[in-house]
């Protein structure tokens, strides 16, 4: 027992020491918003100097792109006045349901974020929160005519139409296709010819079967067509009085088209592959087309179509190392083209919100500066878009952009996106879209993989949603 005692004393002593060491960290975190705390969690903070006397701006986000963007913001000399005073502390949570819960509960509590971001699935929900500041509260003035209107409507309060959040990007959806496969099977890699081969769903299926005969998969996973179909429903999942509405014709068409493709062997994986390893695998080889959009182009497919990164473990998202990899001949880089596809749609987007707390704790200045830098100021918006290939939320900026994109074999993706952005329809969105999104994913798997009947699968969506949306009628 003596040995045990010694070991335990050691453990407890260690625990005590640890508690002392972290005690100061805790104090700092609780007073972080007031500034003056000796810094903790240095890896999270972004800023020029490492001095501890900067005011912390608490940022909550669902994407690691935010950190990259804030790095760009901080690196710009023009923002020196802000970066000298403030330090951004980013917390990232990529699971949507957890992220929503975290943001909503933190907003209501003491430790509210100053700046927080939202995906399309829950941007409406964040806009409705009591603690969300309107862009007017933040002192940001915009000319509404300068924007793609849907990016503004998306985050307007339902009751009075107050504009709550701004987006730096518009996200019209397109179809990305492999030019080499197009040439091999369709005889032409010209966007016009490819568009003709998939201008509606019947032609899409027909092309898919041709691809299959040549050993090429048309799509990678079962959920590939989801966004395109779901955006073209004739109404949102919930009406204003919270009654459930399902455009059964469209959902049926979506399920049946996917099933037809799956049965014909045109789908590489019999699972929902979006945001999974198998999604990325498919981008490298063997799949004809992906339903993507603006941010998808530079954020998702470009880095994941490369193959020579694979052998190397320290592929750290380290910019210098990665830059060299982006060249034609690496994986499927340079073998892609863009067309509108069977129907116009949009996919996601990133909206920036300030909280009422930032108005009180003196960080409003920084929040305003960041939002203006990416979402209002034409020059910096344009610079960011040129750097990444993303597509801006302002048509005026979009007009100025053009590219000779070597990823796309020289095609100018801005031309396609400008066209696509005109047709975006957001009439089908509700604040609970995250829940419905999950329900549709599950129903699709039940129908195609687990053999549930079509009627049951459609009813499943309602049942599943009703479990968590208790107001639904």
């Amino acid at each position: 027992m003596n040995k045990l005692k010694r070991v335990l004393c050691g453990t407890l002593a260690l625990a005590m020491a640890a508690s002392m060491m972290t005690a100061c960290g805790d104090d700092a975190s609780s007073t972080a918003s007031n500034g003056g705390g000796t810094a903790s969690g240095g890896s999270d903070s972004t800023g020029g100097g490492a001095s501890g006397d900067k005011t912390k701006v608490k940022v909550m986000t669902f994407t690691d792109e935010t950190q990259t963007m804030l790095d760009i913001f901080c690196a710009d000399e023009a923002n020196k006045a802000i970066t000298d005073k403030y330090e951004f502390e980013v917390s990232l949570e990529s699971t949507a349901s957890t992220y929503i819960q975290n943001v909503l509960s933190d907003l209501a509590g003491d430790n509210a974020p100053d700046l927080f971001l939202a995906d399309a699935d829950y941007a409406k929900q964040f806009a409705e929160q009591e603690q969300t500041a309107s862009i007017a509260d933040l002192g940001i003035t915009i000319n509404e005519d300068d924007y793609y209107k849907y990016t503004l409507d998306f985050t307007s309060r339902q009751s009075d139409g107050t504009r709550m959040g701004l987006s730096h990007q518009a996200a019209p959806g397109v179809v990305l296709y492999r030019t080499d496969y197009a040439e091999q099977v369709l005889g032409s890699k010209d966007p016009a010819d490819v568009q003709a081969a998939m201008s509606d769903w019947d032609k899409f299926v027909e092309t898919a079967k041709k691809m299959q005969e040549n050993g090429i998969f048309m799509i990678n996973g079962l959920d590939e067509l989801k966004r395109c179909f779901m955006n073209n429903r004739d109404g949102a999942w919930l009406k204003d009085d919270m009654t459930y509405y399902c455009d059964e014709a469209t959902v049926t068409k979506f399920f049946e088209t996917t099933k037809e493709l799956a049965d014909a062997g045109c789908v590489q994986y019999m699972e929902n592959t979006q945001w999974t390893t198998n999604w990325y695998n498919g981008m490298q080889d063997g799949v004809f087309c992906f339903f993507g959009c603006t941010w998808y182009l530079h954020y998702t497919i470009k880095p994941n179509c490369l193959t020579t990164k694979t052998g190397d473990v320290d592929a750290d998202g380290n910019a210098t190392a990665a830059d060299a990899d982006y060249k034609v001949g690496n994986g499927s880089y340079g073998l892609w083209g863009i067309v509108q596809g069977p129907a116009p749609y949009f996919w996601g987007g990133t909206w920036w919100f300030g909280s009422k707390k930032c108005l009180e704790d003196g960080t409003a200045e920084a929040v305003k500066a960041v939002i203006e830098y990416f979402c209002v100021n034409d020059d910096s918006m344009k610079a960011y878009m040129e750097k990444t290939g993303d597509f801006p939320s302002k048509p005026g900026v979009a007009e100025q952009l053009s590219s000779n994109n070597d990823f796309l074999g020289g095609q100018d993706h801005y031309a396609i996106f400008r066209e696509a952005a005109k047709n975006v329809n957001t009439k089908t969105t509700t604040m609970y879209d995250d829940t419905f999104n999950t329900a549709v994913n599950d129903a699709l798997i039940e129908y195609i993989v687990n053999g549930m009947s079509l009627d049951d699968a459609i009813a499943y969506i309602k049942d599943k949603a009703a479990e968590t949306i208790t107001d639904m009628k």
Partner: protein
Amino acid sequence: MANYGQAGQSIKGGYHARILAMKVFVYIVCILLTIMAILPFVIMVFNASKSRYEINNSYVEWNREITDRFVVSLLPSKSFFANGKYLLTSKALNLPFGRGFLNSILIAGGATLLSVYFSALTAYGFAVYRFKLNKPLYAFIMAIQMVPTQVTVISFVELMYKWHWTDNYLPFILPAIAAPSTVFFLRQYMSSALSIEMVEAGRIDGASEFGIFNRLVLPILKPGMATMAIFAMVTNWNNYLLPSLLLRRTELQTVPMLVAKLNGNKYSTEYGAIYFGLTLSAAPLVVFYLILSKYIIAGVALGGVKE
């Protein structure tokens, strides 16, 4: 000791052969179970040393081995430190494991100290004082051992929200004061280890009731408290559900939460690094266990652990 075998020694000749066959069978089963217990951890450590490429092509290798050499894809490779470096420094993953260990030690250590000390205090109160509600209250403690704790998890979290106790360690440390099974164990322990005469002697010397407990009783209870401390430490270290609902800021999160993110991070396809993270989270527990295994096994045998 159960010695019901002795009488059989002088029976027939085939008897020894049968015992031998039985012995061989028992050892084979035990060795198989040993492999089953260890293999997952071995694969975990070996895979932590492989690059993503090696893991993603493991089937190809695996298949080749079936005809060629059998275990090659199970053997370690040389990317162990590269995986470790990536896991610990990657900004994209953002998993501060060093900080996580500190947080886990703080929470588990704090909860362990409180639970062991206050359980001893409570058990002592029941053992030594004959107050009116002694029996019914002790029966109550026995009964609440059986209440499933997760039933209250939602309203507990709601309470913490109302108190603004998110991103705070108190919700995991303070409730440890009330640990019914530890009280039960220590109460049993006292009935054999503690003599009332000693308490009486302390009183005659003029020590206060609290002083008697702290200076005379606690040292005697140490072995029993140590056993309970081990289990409290492990249980609190492994706790996931509550911290995952209440801790937001990455730098406050515990090891199980960071491990869970290895899975949740949809941007990550670095499987070598994932195995490394799992190894990292398991290693301290294995060391802790192997050092204290004698006491842990003895503690389990005493029925001190419930779950």
